[in-house]
């Protein structure tokens, strides 16, 4: 192959190096931080003194160099993996190699050119080669591995290469800077994210501790209030019994007892509400007869039902009434719902309780991933009460909210916590509470509990 040595600077890097090498170098982020260039005039020095730029084959002894001379044409450099050489093209007279290393440790690239023989000293070189090599053929073939240039040509070449090197270094350096900038930007992003992350965690901790403090505060206060209340309720009851002959005292004692019980219920509600909000509700499931339990809850309202002459019915549509659930929580939910129904249904009205089993099937869902068929126990309480406005129905689960006007509320009593508590407990049990209502017709509340 004929290689015009003077045209290197015109050829440009892309043609000097093959595409794969360039791609390899530039493709992998390519932070080239060092480019080494060497040009040797092998004729000026003795063979044994010539240094090759690659680390492992610096001058050692004549024998080694003889080997190098012999093998250079066959691509010796290519066979030295420790040097990390990628390509040696002896045919062109130039061995260049590029070894982009792992970019994470910063790429180091070498561009090595050489060696050549000075035309003026050709004969001297030949003589010196003869000392090592006997066969004329071999001498000729090893010398053919070198370019022969006049000193003028060599200095021109040096100039060209310097130019090329500058361009090469410049573009490499620019690339290096750009990728470094990217790296810095990524690092900055990373640091920023970390700061944000820490701040978020701190905020979360703060909010958690405030919320814990609030819950602890409410728990302590309500507990402290409950203890004296127990005495008030207990002693007022005793007082009523002791003074059964004095009707005035008995009435006062009964009022104290009644109001005390009411206050205790409110305090209990606040206590439940705070544990719902802090998410600290524990569900204890046990095997129970749900029909029996519901009957007992309804029966406990006997007095209130009698007083308002309500028609109350209970219809269980289940074959087997044994289920696993938290009896205390179910009782609280159903009581809150019955409280409301009885409270807001006028005299002579009716309250109906239904118990059934429901399966919600996948066909009923338009969801992308379909739904898992689930079995529920459904307890429905339907009343013929005053009903709730359509625009107010979404508010009924808010704490301290009452759908009816203030005047009515005062008359009916309550703090507006019932439905909030019922919903909180229903969800804690893995179920849900649904409400439908029409003003003047009544309200239907359904508790769905997973089986």
């Amino acid at each position, binding site marked *: 192959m004929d290689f015009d040595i003077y045209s290197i600077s015109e050829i440009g890097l892309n043609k000097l190096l093959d595409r794969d090498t360039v791609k390899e170098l530039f493709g992998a982020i390519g932070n080239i931080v060092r480019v080494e260039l060497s040009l040797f005039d092998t004729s000026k020095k003795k063979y044994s003194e010539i240094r090759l730029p690659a680390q492992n084959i610096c001058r050692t002894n004549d024998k080694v160099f003889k080997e190098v001379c012999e093998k250079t044409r066959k691509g010796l450099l290519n066979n030295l993996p420790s040097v990390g050489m990628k390509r040696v093209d002896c045919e062109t007279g130039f061995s260049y190699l590029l070894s982009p290393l792992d970019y*994470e440790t910063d790429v180091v690239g070498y561009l090595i050119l050489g060696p050549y023989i000075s035309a003026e000293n050709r004969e001297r070189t030949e003589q010196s080669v003869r000392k090592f090599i006997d066969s004329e053929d071999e001498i000729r073939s090893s010398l053919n591995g070198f370019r022969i240039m006049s000193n003028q040509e060599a200095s021109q070449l040096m100039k060209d290469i310097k130019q090329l090197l500058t361009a090469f270094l410049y573009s490499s350096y620019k690339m290096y800077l750009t990728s470094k900038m990217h790296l810095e930007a990524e690092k900055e992003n990373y640091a920023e*994210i*970390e700061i944000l*992350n820490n701040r978020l*965690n701190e905020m979360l901790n703060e909010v958690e501790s405030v919320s814990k403090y609030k819950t602890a505060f409410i728990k302590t206060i309500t507990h402290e209030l409950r203890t004296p209340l127990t005495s008030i309720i207990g002693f007022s009851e005793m007082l009523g019994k002791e003074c059964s002959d004095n009707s005035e005292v008995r009435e006062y004692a009964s009022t104290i007892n009644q109001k005390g019980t009411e206050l205790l219920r409110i305090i209990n509600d606040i206590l439940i509400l705070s544990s719902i909000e802090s998410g600290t509700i524990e569900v204890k499931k046990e095997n129970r007869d749900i029909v029996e339990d519901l009957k007992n809850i309804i029966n406990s309202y006997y007095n209130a039902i009698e007083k308002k002459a309500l028609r109350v019915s209970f219809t269980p549509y289940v074959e087997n009434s044994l289920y696993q659930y938290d009896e205390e929580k179910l009782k609280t939910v159903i009581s809150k719902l019955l409280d409301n129904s009885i409270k807001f249904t006028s005299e002579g009205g009716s309250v109906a309780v239904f118990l059934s089993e429901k399966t919600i099937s996948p066909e009923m869902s338009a*969801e992308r*991933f*379909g739904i*898992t068929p689930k079995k529920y126990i459904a307890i429905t309480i339907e009343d013929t009460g005053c009903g709730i406005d359509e625009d107010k129905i979404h508010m009924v689960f808010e704490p301290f909210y009452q759908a009816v006007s203030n005047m009515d509320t005062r008359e009916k009593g309550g703090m507006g916590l019932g439905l909030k508590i019922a919903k909180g407990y229903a969800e804690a049990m893995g179920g849900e509470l649904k409400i439908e209502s029409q003003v003047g017709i009544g309200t239907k509340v359904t508790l769905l509990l997973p089986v």
Partner: protein
Amino acid sequence: MQFNIAQKEVTLKIVYYGPALSGKTTNLQAIHQMIRQEGRGRLMTLDTRDDRTLFFDLLPVFFSTSSGIKVKLKLFTVPGQVIHNSTRKLVLAGADAVAFIADSQISLNDANNESWNNLMDNMKANGLNPDEIPVVIQFNKRDLPNIKSDAEIDMIARKGREPVFKAVAIKGFGVIETLFGLLSLTHRYLCERHNFETKFKISQTEFLENIYKHIDLSLVGKLDIKPKA
């Protein structure tokens, strides 16, 4: 898609979406382990105290085309927890494609639906058309008990336009298939939308092969990524 003319660099944003703990980060970790170093950058992941992604993870994957253009894929994950919606919305902005990582466990059906609906809402909020943007669905955790059957997954696949893949991301199964499924959709989408192939001279084969050649397929099934607690 971002195109930097000075640097001849195209950047595509791919978002891994899905419910909490479905394996989005695991997918990225598996890709990170299977793509050889020269084809990818560092996996940036910020785990929080309970091992969940609070902000996002980012894995850059890159290659240069024969026409000299550097293509950079930025793979993002979003935090799955319901409360982190603002972060999810932010990460989804400007996305070119979405891989939805669903949990195969029957009990997590609702979580999948909720996250899917959230994805649709957030796409709309970011001005992305859910009917056009490339989306694939991956059913992860196929190695667990109590999972959706293959027939059920087929039924779900028929329900929409998104290609569906099955995976065990902690072992590396199905992860590359999902990524390649999404990338081929993305290439087609970019061609229709931005005339990608004509403009940048990157054919679909070149687009995929450039990434494929960096992948060590011998690692499929041999990975052992620790799932989050």
